[in-house]
């Protein structure tokens, strides 16, 4: 089969995996070597496709032949999709050729499962090995690992990659049993635990090495700096509370860098076991917003999705919904409140909160000061007190407040087409300020 056709099949097979971060790698570059490549800091989006997604890495499967039967996946064994297989050398060459033209930040390699987990893992690792050892490639490498592969191989992948990831796929084992019968939550979390330990050991070892002077820094090989995962939303009946509880556990117990939420979208070769109707795209967007609140705004899961509301409000962002349920804590005085309290004001992002705290030292803040910092007043007015502003008490009462924020029907659609926090993270950062 011709290379162009293989690329077509194996990129198409990989496109449903959204967890393709290219950020958070250790700093390295190609100076002094015969190769190319650099990483460190935020990944770069080198292009955007008309679905609004960032194109950052060459995201392909080594092969889309697969023994497993995950029903949400176009590559499952029950699908009749055309199969193809790259040789490791072909992927290596494609990666380098694309990289040198500045099309990409690096490679995101995954594979269907052939023969068994270890065999597949070895093939994937071989690509990374050639890139690093034969071609001195210093760009980003993200490898998907298979939880059933041996710990030894998973670690080996970690030594070549900047990031490794295992997809959790669904929040519960019951969901997996039905839709991905070969997958096992316990295997997955165990493997994540192993990776976490190795990452932490490497960080500790690096710190130690830095304390011992005169030791050349670059000599120590670098283990992947983070792991991430993807959870499918809308393929099974799990509610948002379940999804977020699982995500929260992954952040706490396994120190994941990112959990990606991927709204199930129609695929060619549909399975009889799957819903025909895709969940609204906005659900995915709300989950990312809630995720952001968990990680950076000091919220816990129960505050965001209380028992009485296990689903996120699709019409309003989760912080605003929380505020509407907890009106008694408002209004908050921007000239006095603590950082944690400021974080809870709808319409204020962490950046703006930092600005407010800095500006407070120069005098009391008026609405005009907030405006100059780029804060949108319309949203926050009912919730704050400023030097020249106290909201009408009646504003915080009754149904009106919710009405005030409901977008007009036309506009709502526009909002819905706003990109969900796109990968990589910098796009997300840009938008998170608006949360």
């Amino acid at each position, binding site marked *: 089969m011709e290379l162009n056709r293989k690329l077509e099949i194996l990129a198409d097979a990989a496109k449903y995996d959204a967890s393709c971060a290219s950020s958070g790698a250790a700093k390295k570059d190609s100076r002094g070597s015969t190769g*190319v490549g650099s990483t460190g800091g935020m990944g770069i989006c080198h292009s955007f496709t008309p679905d609004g997604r960032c194109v950052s890495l060459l995201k392909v499967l080594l092969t889309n032949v697969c023994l497993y039967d995950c029903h949400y996946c176009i590559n499952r*064994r029950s699908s009749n999709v055309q199969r193809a297989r790259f040789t490791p050398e072909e992927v290596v060459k494609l990666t380098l050729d694309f990289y040198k033209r500045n099309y990409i930040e690096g490679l995101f390699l995954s594979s269907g499962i052939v023969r068994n987990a270890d065999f597949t893992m070895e093939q994937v690792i071989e690509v990374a090995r050639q890139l690093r050892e034969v071609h001195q490639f210093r760009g980003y490498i993200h490898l998907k690992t298979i939880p059933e592969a041996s710990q030894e191989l998973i670690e080996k992948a970690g030594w070549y990659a900047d990031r490794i990831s295992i997809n959790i796929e669904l929040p519960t084992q019951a969901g997996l049993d039905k839709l991905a019968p070969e997958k096992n939550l316990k295997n997955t979390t165990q493997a994540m635990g192993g990776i976490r330990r190795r990452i932490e050991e490497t960080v500790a070892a690096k710190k130690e090495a830095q304390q011992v002077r005169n030791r050349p820094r670059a000599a120590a090989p670098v283990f992947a700096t983070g792991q991430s995962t993807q959870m499918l939303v809308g393929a099974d009946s799990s509610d948002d509370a379940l999804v977020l509880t699982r995500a929260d556990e992954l952040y706490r117990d396994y120190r994941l860098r990112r959990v990606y939420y991927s709204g199930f979208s129609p695929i060619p070769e549909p399975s009889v076991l799957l819903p025909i109707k895709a969940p609204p795209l906005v659900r995915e967007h709300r989950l990312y917003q809630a995720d952001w609140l968990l990680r950076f705004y000091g919220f816990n899961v129960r505050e965001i999705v209380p028992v009485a509301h296990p689903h996120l409000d699709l019409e309003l962002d989760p912080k605003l919904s929380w505020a509407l349920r907890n009106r008694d804590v408002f209004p908050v005085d921007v000239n006095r409140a603590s950082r944690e309290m400021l974080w809870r004001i709808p319409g204020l992002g962490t950046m703006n909160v930092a600005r407010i705290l800095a500006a407070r030292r120069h005098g009391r803040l008026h609405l005009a000061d907030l405006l100059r910092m780029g804060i949108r007043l319309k949203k926050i007015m009912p919730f704050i007190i400023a030097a020249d502003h106290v909201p009408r008490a009646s504003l915080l009462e009754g149904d009106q407040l919710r009405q005030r924020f409901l977008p007009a029907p036309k506009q709502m659609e526009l909002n819905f087409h706003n990109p969900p926090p796109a990968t990589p993270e910098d796009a997300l950062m840009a938008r998170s300020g608006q949360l």
Partner: protein
Amino acid sequence: MVRAIIEPNYAAWRDKAREMLGAHVRPHEVDWCDATQTGSLMMEEPGLPRFVDPSEVKVPAEFLKLAAGVCAHTDERRFAILYRLLFRITRGGERHLMDHPADADMTLCRGWTKAVGRDVHKMHAFVRFRLVGVNEETGREQFVAWYEPEFRILRMASSFFEKRFAGMDWSILTPDECAHWDGHALSFSPGVSRLSVPDADAHDDLWRTYYRSIFNPARLKIQAMKSEMPMKFWKNLPEARIIPDLISGSSLRVEEMLEEPERPVKPMPNNEYIKALHARRLQGPGES
């Protein structure tokens, strides 16, 4: 009134500003002019007082960083406002102005550096190299790119390319200035016209294949794409030319997907590994 005519770059502004500050010239007494805009018609007015204050002025490092970004912008007011900020910080007793986010001058300058930073970022993202040959002596591959930044950022943006593409020879050509890397040092030469750049690379086709295949037609979000990748960049991106086709063909592709008959579940393959996985699952109930 003093007229300060400078080349529109950070180094020129810094030298002039240092001179002015030493002479205690107040911000409203200087008229800052861009030498490339005014031509030779205007002469610098000899209004500068002879007196020079020998005491050293301390400027926060953060300010210098801000100034470098602001100078790369094209707004006519930038040199004057920067000088006013500098004066306020050093002579006006407002030492901590830098961390005052609501100050009007600061807000303007931050806005400009942000625009410049974005331009640098977009340049890192959207430069596209083309292979033009191999150096016969060194065996190194040689690449050329054409790029049109909004501001004068080539030098600012070049160190990124130096670090990333150390192992190949490359040139980035822009209308104002060109940068070149030969494995040893960065060098710069005057700008060129677009005509001097090769128009296609054999790999552009493969790249378009990838771009087409990675796109998910079921999630069309054209606005999101355009806000991250504004159309003004499209003319130099090889993949952009297939965007209209991808968009117009997407609804048909989705309809076809939805009309596909559902595929039945196939029986388990005769594979030891899969059998073992299932056996383990049936033995012990998985955790939920």
